[in-house]
């Protein structure tokens, strides 16, 4: 997989003060988010989110716990539809189509926009079946064995599992399970991969491998990642959205987008004081 040609921007990685890559601003916008707010019942979890996500970039969501990063991320593949109390308002346009518009099939959306969850959640089935399930229900007609191998190779886990594809996915370590979940997410050839703290349960080595993997994947996919790890956001992302929590008079904690910009800008020269406090606070 090291043969995959890298684009100029990822070649110039030099965290955190790398060049922003001139070609980036010309990359097409694939998500245009405006005035996004999510309520759980009467409780407004997050409001006022305006961001645009560009193709083949890694966009990081950072911010304190409970500020709504997961909530926002789950709007992008309509995962919040599964939570009965959740109400999404505002608009998310995906390639110019309103994701929450009438006639949009959330199943179809999730086929194009894959997700890796915070906790590794392989199916209680074999490693092979974990990967094959998505393509199978999508009506994949090609060579399944090859697709499984390819997906596992791309997720940098093939060598560890190639001799035990029929074993239970639960027999893998946490880090291996997470990479399996990444392989599962890319097996359906999505357009976008959403990753919710994919490394939070991983050791530094596994984390590094997943970061390398993200850098590889962004050649073909657009990636959104939630992370609590500042260094990780600085290392891998092209752009960063910083969220915070406002506590209202009634004690209601509502998340808000503070700043959204190139990662270098956010980490080196943020426009908002809050952003700077958060970032420097974390770095000590």
């Amino acid at each position, binding site marked *: 997989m090291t043969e995959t040609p890298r684009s100029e921007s990822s070649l110039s990685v030099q965290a955190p003060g790398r060049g922003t890559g001139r070609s980036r601003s010309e990359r097409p916008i694939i998500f245009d988010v405006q005035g996004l707010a999510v309520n759980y019942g009467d409780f407004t979890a997050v409001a006022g989110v305006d961001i645009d996500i560009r193709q083949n970039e890694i966009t990081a969501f950072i911010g304190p716990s409970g500020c709504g990063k997961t909530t926002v991320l789950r709007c992008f593949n309509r*995962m919040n539809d*599964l939570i009965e109390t959740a109400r999404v308002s505002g608009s998310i346009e995906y390639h110019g189509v309103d994701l929450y518009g009438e006639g949009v099939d959330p199943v*179809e959306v999730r086929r194009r926009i*894959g*997700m890796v969850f915070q906790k590794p*959640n392989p199916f*209680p089935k074999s490693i092979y079946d974990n990967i094959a*399930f998505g393509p199978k229900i999508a009506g994949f007609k090609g060579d399944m064995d090859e697709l499984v191998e390819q997906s596992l190779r791309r997720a940098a886990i093939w060598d560890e599992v190639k001799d035990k594809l029929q074993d239970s996915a639960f027999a893998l370590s946490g880090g291996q399970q997470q990479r399996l979940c990444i392989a599962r997410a890319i097996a359906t050839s999505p357009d976008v991969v959403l990753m919710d703290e994919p490394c939070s349960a991983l050791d530094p080595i596994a984390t590094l491998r997943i970061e390398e993997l993200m850098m590889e994947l962004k050649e073909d996919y657009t990636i959104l990642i939630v992370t609590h790890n500042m260094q990780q956001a600085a290392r891998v992302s092209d752009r960063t959205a910083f969220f915070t929590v406002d506590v209202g008079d009634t004690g209601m904690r509502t998340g808000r987008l503070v700043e959204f910009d190139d990662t270098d800008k956010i980490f080196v020269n943020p426009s908002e004081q809050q952003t700077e406090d958060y970032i420097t606070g974390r770095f000590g």
Partner: protein
Amino acid sequence: MVSTPRSAGTADMVRASISGRGSRKGGKVFEYSLLASLMVALLFLAILLADIFRQGLGVLFDRGLDFVTSPLSLNPETAGIWQSLTGSVLLTILVALIAFPIGIGSAIYLEEYAPDTRFTRFINTNIRNLAGVPSIVYGILGLTMFVTFTRSIGLGGGVNGRNMIAAGLTLAVLVLPIVIITAAEALRAVPNSIREAAFGVGATRWEVVRYHVLPSAAPGILTGTVLTLARAFGETAPLLLVGAATGFFTTGNAGLLEQTTGPYTALPVTVFSWARQPDAQFRELTAAAIIVLLVLLLTANAAAVILRNRFERRW
């Protein structure tokens, strides 16, 4: 090693408090009284079983298989439980065929599809209430509804609808709430992360249920539902109302349809009717029939456990 002047005293205090001298009396009393309750319960069970085996084993040893394969009779020397046994087995199969699809289907709907509204919560609560309704009430329901129904669709047989079909429907309705509750519990035990994972790769709700939720819940559903069958197998009161024969009757070699539409009885009903006979010999027969009933129930429960382990061992 720096030893402070306080350390010796602290060590003594720690030693004293962790050795818990004399401070656990209340706990001990409580523990022993719990043990005593358990012993009382076990004692009653043991006495009951000992009594039944003392009375019944003789018949089983003397007559052997003959007791099981002989037809019902007024003569205690030759009376057997053949119709009761086949009746119970057929009835249980009937109950499974009716109650499982409906019950498991309802549970899937309630757990996986139904929105969490007041109405569904109301339904859920009432299913729980229904599970607690005394079985005789179901018997009355069976008598007024299913007997009439069976008659009206022309399956009344020679007994005016008071046959095994009506009984099967009655028992199916009786166990339905329990089937729904156990199946729903098994479905609820499936971690949500599995559903999210499946939705996340673009599965429809049906695919999520079919390929992930049901396979994960199957062991639990299976054990729960087999245990409800055991309940149906042991029911007596409602059957008395929907016409299970307490006397004897002949089936000869009737076909399946005649057996299900004609007169019928079931093992617990036979136990009931034999127990009322004044003849001492019938008391032994009753005990023998109870032993057969218990063996069948234990076998069913063991089968449920084995099936569950088989399923679970897959991963």
